[in-house]
């Protein structure tokens, strides 16, 4: 029976299963064929025992239930209908940007829940309930020389005296000073106490603070890596994108989910435009390959010069950021500015943010001009411009942090008058962690304001202008195009700031969630109202990988200042949960001291070199093995491809042979016939 059935299931398509284990829905037959297969399977069921059939029918109803449950769950997915609408009108490329934004909102919200549950809520509870177990933390490492100067280290009084004017209130809201400074928003407010909840168990606030921040970064890393693993796999193992360029455009060029007529017209145009561009680029590439040596020399020296120019421009903008940050820090500490004009003091507060945003606006324009002169192929152009923009964004943040570090630690020189007593600049920064938190807070707010202002003052007027003014240059300028890479860089920049700032300001993820939530709707609005679809479509598959790689770079960048301040810089003596420690990291070894002996020794062993070095060597070996495995598989793929071609040639050869033999046979037959007929004739002839 089995054999007969297998033979039957091979009839329809020719490439068919040898065993029908596939679910019915996935069989590429028309409905009647599927129904026939279903009847055959059900007949088979009747042959097996009743226990088996009962099990199968229950399995089926369980699967149905799962399907319905998945259906209900997917309906509860946030923003599903918005994403569908965007996909329908603009295609999957732009939808991937909004998908990415939604992912970040979820990530930030999860992070906020983590910090709230472990840090903020216990603190609020302890404050209100006023437990008796408030014990100051026992410090094992005292400061070296408690001379008179160090007494000043713990002077920290940010509260305002007397009545607060309305302007100051707004100022405080926008720059995180005043009433916001001593609140749960910033590091300085948290206590360095151990709360004894019961006789055996106590809640160590500093330890919780440190562990939450580290855990937060670790979870983000794991989540990101998990999400990008698919993209990594494809890009490592797969063949070069250039080798499947045209086939991708032809067979996967059409978005079957676009249903609006205007959108389809645009889609046709974009496919046409892309294919033309590709053919042009092919022609250019052939021309480049035919360049003489002299031309090559010219173009290479030109490219070298322009790259130096790019580096020079980047250096200039970094220098500006450095100067601006130093200037604003100096001015902030002068009371004259604080009490003067509201707008002037706001300007001074936001000077670093303004300079960074200005650099991020002007530099890409210059990069676009420069790349036009360099005469690369189009794909290299895009990649290089993106690389330069990413570097600019992340490095400008790094520059800001560097200049802050110079200020806080007197450029590493501990003997300078300002830093000598407390190992940080206690005169200007009685609570330096809060100050960094404030800078990050200001960056986030300014970033948000920039996005809103650009939308209102640039996108909307541009659309109105294009609609109502029909003169040539305006029409040539055209409506705004929704540029996915630039927008992605914007939100990655915002997320990096949030990651850096969360250690100094635990409520920043909440701020970021709200910010990205609002940005989703704003961007959706601007997309539908102001933008036209781009001429060059953004491939969703490669773009997801690109977004996650840039986000990963931002995460790595943000780990550096956080880890540096945990391990190296002395915490402020006047505020925060680590005021009695030498270094923030010291709380961990101190807490481990309190653990039972076995655990303590185990943890110390893990942290020692005797464990780390063998682990490192083992990881290197593993990595080497995996890389060589991938290489071996790649080679096997090539071998099999060659084999496939050889088999096809063999098939052709055999077919030709058969044809020839058939002809030879027929000739033989003809010969035989003519022989016989001649024989017959001779026989006939008496």
């Amino acid at each position, binding site marked *: 029976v089995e054999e007969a059935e297998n033979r039957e299931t091979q009839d329809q398509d020719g*490439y068919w299963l040898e065993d029908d284990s596939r679910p019915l829905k996935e069989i590429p037959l028309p409905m009647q064929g*599927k129904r026939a297969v279903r009847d055959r399977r059900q007949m088979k069921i009747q042959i097996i025992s009743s226990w088996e059939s009962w099990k199968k029918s229950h399995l089926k109803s369980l699967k149905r239930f799962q399907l319905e449950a998945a259906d209900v769950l997917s309906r509860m997915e946030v923003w599903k209908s918005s994403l569908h609408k965007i996909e329908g009108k603009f295609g999957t490329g732009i939808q991937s940007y909004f998908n990415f934004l939604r992912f970040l909102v979820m990530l930030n919200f999860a992070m906020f829940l983590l910090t709230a549950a472990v840090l903020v809520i216990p603190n609020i509870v302890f404050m209100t309930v006023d437990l008796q177990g408030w014990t100051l933390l026992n410090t094992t490492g005292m400061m070296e020389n408690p001379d008179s100067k160090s007494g000043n280290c713990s002077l920290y009084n940010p509260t305002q005296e007397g009545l607060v004017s309305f302007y100051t209130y707004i100022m405080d809201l926008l720059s995180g000073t005043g009433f916001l400074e001593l609140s749960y928003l910033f590091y300085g407010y948290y206590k360095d106490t151990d709360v004894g909840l019961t006789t055996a168990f106590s809640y160590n606030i500093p330890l919780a603070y440190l562990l939450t921040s580290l855990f937060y970064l670790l979870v983000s890393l794991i989540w990101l890596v998990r999400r990008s693993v698919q993209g990594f796999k494809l890009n490592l193992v797969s063949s070069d994108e250039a080798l*499947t360029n045209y086939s991708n455009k032809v067979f996967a060029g059409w978005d*079957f989910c676009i249903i609006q007529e205007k959108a389809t017209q645009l889609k046709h145009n974009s496919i046409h435009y892309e294919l033309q561009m590709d053919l042009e680029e092919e022609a250019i590439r052939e021309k480049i390959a035919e360049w003489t040596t002299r031309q090559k020399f010219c173009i290479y020296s030109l490219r070298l010069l322009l790259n130096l120019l790019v580096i020079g421009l980047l250096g200039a903008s970094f220098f500006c950021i450095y100067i601006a940050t130093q200037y604003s820090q100096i001015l902030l500490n002068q009371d004259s500015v604080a009490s003067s004009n509201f707008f002037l003091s706001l300007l001074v507060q936001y000077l670093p943010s303004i300079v960074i945003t200005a650099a991020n606006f002007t530099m890409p324009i210059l990069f676009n001009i420069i790349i036009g002169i360099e005469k690369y192929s189009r794909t290299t152009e895009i990649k290089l411009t993106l690389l330069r923009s990413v570097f600019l964004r992340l490095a400008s943040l790094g520059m800001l942090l560097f200049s802050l570090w110079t200020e806080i630690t007197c450029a590493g020189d501990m003997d300078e008058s300002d830093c000598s007593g407390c190992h940080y600049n206690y005169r200007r920064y009685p609570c330096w962690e809060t100050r960094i938190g404030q800078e990050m807070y200001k960056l986030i707010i300014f970033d948000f304001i920039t996005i809103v202002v650009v939308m209102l003052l640039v996108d909307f007027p541009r659309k109105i202008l294009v609609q109502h003014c029909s003169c040539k240059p305006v029409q040539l300028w055209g409506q705004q195009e929704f540029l996915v890479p630039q927008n992605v860089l914007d939100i990655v920049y915002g997320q990096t700031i949030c990651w850096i700032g969360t250690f100094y300001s635990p409520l920043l993820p909440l701020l970021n969630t709200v910010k990205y939530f609002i940005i989703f709707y704003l961007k959706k609005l601007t997309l539908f109202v102001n933008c036209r679809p781009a001429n060059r479509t953004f491939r969703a598959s490669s773009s997801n990988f690109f977004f996650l790689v840039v986000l990963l770079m931002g995460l790595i960048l943000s780990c550096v200042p956080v880890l540096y301040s945990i391990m190296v810089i002395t915490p402020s003596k006047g505020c925060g949960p680590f005021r009695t420690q030498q270094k923030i990291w010291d709380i961990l070894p101190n807490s481990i001291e309190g653990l039972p002996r076995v655990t303590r020794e185990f943890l110390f062993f893990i942290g020692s070199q005797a464990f780390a070095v063998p682990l490192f060597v083992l990881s290197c070996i593993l990595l080497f093995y995996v890389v060589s495995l991938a290489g071996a598989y790649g080679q096997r793929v090539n071998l099999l491809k060659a084999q496939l071609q050889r088999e096809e040639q063999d098939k052709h050869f055999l077919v030709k042979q058969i044809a020839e033999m058939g002809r030879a046979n027929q000739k033989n037959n003809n010969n035989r016939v003519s022989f016989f007929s001649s024989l017959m004739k001779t026989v006939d002839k008496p």
Partner: protein
Amino acid sequence: MGNKQTIFTAEQLDAYQDCTFFTRKEILRLFHRYRDLAPQLVPPDYTSKPDVKIPYELIGSMPELKDNPFRQRIAEVFSEDGEGNMTLDDFLDMFSVMSEMAPKDLKACYAFKIYDFNNDDFICKSDLEKTLNKLTRNELTPEEVRLVCEKVIDEADLDNDGRLSLEDFQHMIIRAPDFLRRTQASKTRREQLIREPELLNKYKFSGSK
């Protein structure tokens, strides 16, 4: 379940649920959409399994297909008679394959059939030219069309016979054969090879759930 409906017998609904990716509600919703295309042709009661076909002109006017350059081929591939006139079974089939729940190799199989204009189980040069012209609405010059077709065949033709078979097509669509799977679970001849999600994600009707 508790909902009483008189359109299908319980057996028919069961069979549809087994053979498509849709739940009960979705199947009934799709039936109403089918009926709305031609209310006078389609009876409200399918328990007697009537033999009703909606002509291609009405199918091609649906919003999902109206502006799709391949609508005629889609209808032809999924219809029983090969001319585009669809019965309810064909209609449900089409939406099932084009839904987001369908696995990638199923979509690849049907996508191949859609682009195979002469139905000879190979995508040859003339099929490619027709595909390109439909994609660009005949706006490319014949020289450009020829160049692009050549390039596509260069890129995707593995066994070097000048045309694309189903295997060539699938391999091109997935870009990176999942080698471990192929060497281990080699029981079934066609496995879940498709790993590149975004390319085949485009082969679906949005909002069809």
